[in-house]
């Protein structure tokens, strides 16, 4: 159910007309149970979602180390510094690189697997589904720590396997080398969340009637025809939401990065939320105002990019319609 549909909800059933002449107060009083039901969410959501979003803007204007009860106002200085900070821009770049690389891989690879698993005649389908979904339920922070050992150059199973099969002749220092660390984290991220995208696709595939496949087969269509002319067009409406849900995962890779590499070596895996964490909590002198400014700036950047994307999509669509 989409949020917009909520407006079509109906009136209370006690037969009371919607606009009583006695006015607004009566109506509010009559609906008191409704407001009482809303109260817990309204209070908690205001405290823990709305207030923090709003007050972050104020914090971002402060020079504030967290020790004093409050910081001193210094206008837009934090923003000026953020926009000149190479660490900030490199962290932003890595965050988007993370998304640009992992999202397409997850979307395409998990779609292929989901199509295989969706075949009712495939043996062991349930086992495969369970196995590929298993990492999803596990704690990311713990997986991050375990993966440090798995990728260890001196005896971790990955290196042993690579050495034994002769793919490499010297152990690879996956996480200790600043040229490979980020890609290793991406690999683990794909491994960890592959199952989620796969289940999204399976849910979408299950909306397609199996009879359609049977009919296509009777008509002599091969697997490729079926994919391009039946499966893909019918999956299209789901693709956007699955893409968005998969993309959102990549904006929250803090747990994995902090536990696998801590942002290192030489900041080579420092994505934006690790950058914010470092400024606010891990530095010798915490800079809460500066960290807030970085968070707000990144939020704005994401919104701008999203708007550009929507506009580009709309342009492309109208261009296609005109053609």
């Amino acid at each position, binding site marked *: 159910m989409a949020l917009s549909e909520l407006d079509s909800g109906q009136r209370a059933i006690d037969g009371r007309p919607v606009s009583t002449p006695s006015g607004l107060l009566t109506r509010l009083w009559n609906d008191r149970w409704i407001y009482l039901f809303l109260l817990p969410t309204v209070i908690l959501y205001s405290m823990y979602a709305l207030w923090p979003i709003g007050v972050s803007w104020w914090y971002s204007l402060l020079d504030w180390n967290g020790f004093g009860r409050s910081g001193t106002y210094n206008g837009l200085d934090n923003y000026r510094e953020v926009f000149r900070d190479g660490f900030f821009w490199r962290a932003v770049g890595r965050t988007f690189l993370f998304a640009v690389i992992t999202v397409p891989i997850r979307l395409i690879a998990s779609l292929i697997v989901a199509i295989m698993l969706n075949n009712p005649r495939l043996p062991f389908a349930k086992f495969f*589904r369970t196995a590929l979904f298993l990492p999803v339920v596990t704690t990311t922070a713990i997986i991050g720590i375990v993966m440090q050992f798995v990728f260890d150059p001196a005896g971790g199973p990955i290196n042993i396997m690579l050495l034994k099969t002769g793919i490499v002749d010297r152990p690879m220092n996956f996480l200790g080398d600043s040229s490979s660390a980020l890609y290793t984290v991406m690999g683990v991220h794909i491994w960890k969340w592959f199952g989620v995208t796969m289940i999204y696709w399976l849910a979408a595939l299950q909306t397609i009637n199996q009879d359609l496949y049977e009919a296509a087969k009777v008509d002599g269509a091969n697997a490729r025809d079926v994919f391009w002319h039946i499966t893909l067009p019918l999956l299209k409406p789901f693709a956007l939401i699955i893409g968005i849900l998969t993309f959102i995962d990549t904006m929250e890779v803090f747990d994995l990065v902090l*536990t696998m590499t801590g942002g290192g070596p030489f900041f080579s895996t420092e994505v934006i939320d690790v950058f914010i964490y470092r400024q606010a909590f891990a530095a010798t002198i915490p800079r809460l105002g500066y960290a807030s400014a970085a968070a707000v700036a990144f939020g704005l950047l994401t919104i701008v990019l999203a708007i550009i994307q929507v506009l580009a999509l709309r342009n492309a669509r109208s261009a296609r319609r005109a053609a």
Partner: protein
Amino acid sequence: MSQQVQHRRQLIRGSMGMWLQVLGLTILSLFWIYPFLWLASASLKDSLEIFTSGLNLVPQEWRWENYVRAWNDAGFSRYMLNSILITVGSVLLVLFRCSLTGYVLARYNFIGKKFVVGIFLVTIFVPAGYTIIAVMELSQSLGLLNTHLGIILALSGGGHVAAILLYAGYFSRIPRELEEAAVLDGASFFQIFRSIMLPLAGPVTATVSVLTFLGTWNSFFVPLVFTFSRPDLRTLAVGMLAFRGEHSTDWSGLAAAATLSLIPVVILFFFLQRYFLEGIAGAVKS
């Protein structure tokens, strides 16, 4: 005759393709399961053996004392209790507030409804990490920073719009006749919700419980920053990070602690697999 041969050939080719797929998926699944097997095996080995025994998964000697060390000395019994308390508290709070909100949003019109829905719409995608400083400040001024309750509220107070939507979607499909009969019998607003509507929404309650459980049990950022000055409040995930910092050479103890931390959620997943998968799939269908 020739048609029969062609048909048979097609069948053979079809099943060949099928078995190739099975082979591919088996190899893929091995890569997905192997780290867990490796972890379980490392948790029973000697610290030295982990790195010298190569790919051999069976320990030379089963060292259960690794678990004793993790559970008692490293404090994982405490961390487990904290994780359970925080998770149970968060699940209950999310169920409570989201079922109430979803119910009135789905079945009633009232002044301010558009505003409430609009707020959810605008804030649905704000990641928790970007507001953590403000949440900490708020908790500190309320005296909640170093408490279980503070962590529970921070984890379940904001967000969870998806849970509200799941409830709203379900409640909006319940026929009104059920309610009308109850009103005639003199049931109050709250009674209708409590004894008719909520029991009917059992499947949604199951899905929301599972999803909230998963999110809270695996959460890391909030418990991490809330327990900086109170190690005794650490959850399993935060405890793991601390363990690595404090006993960086105790590989087998670390593996045992990790196994202990992962076991509850994995067991729960195997028993409630249907709800896990339906809960995840529900995000796409709704």
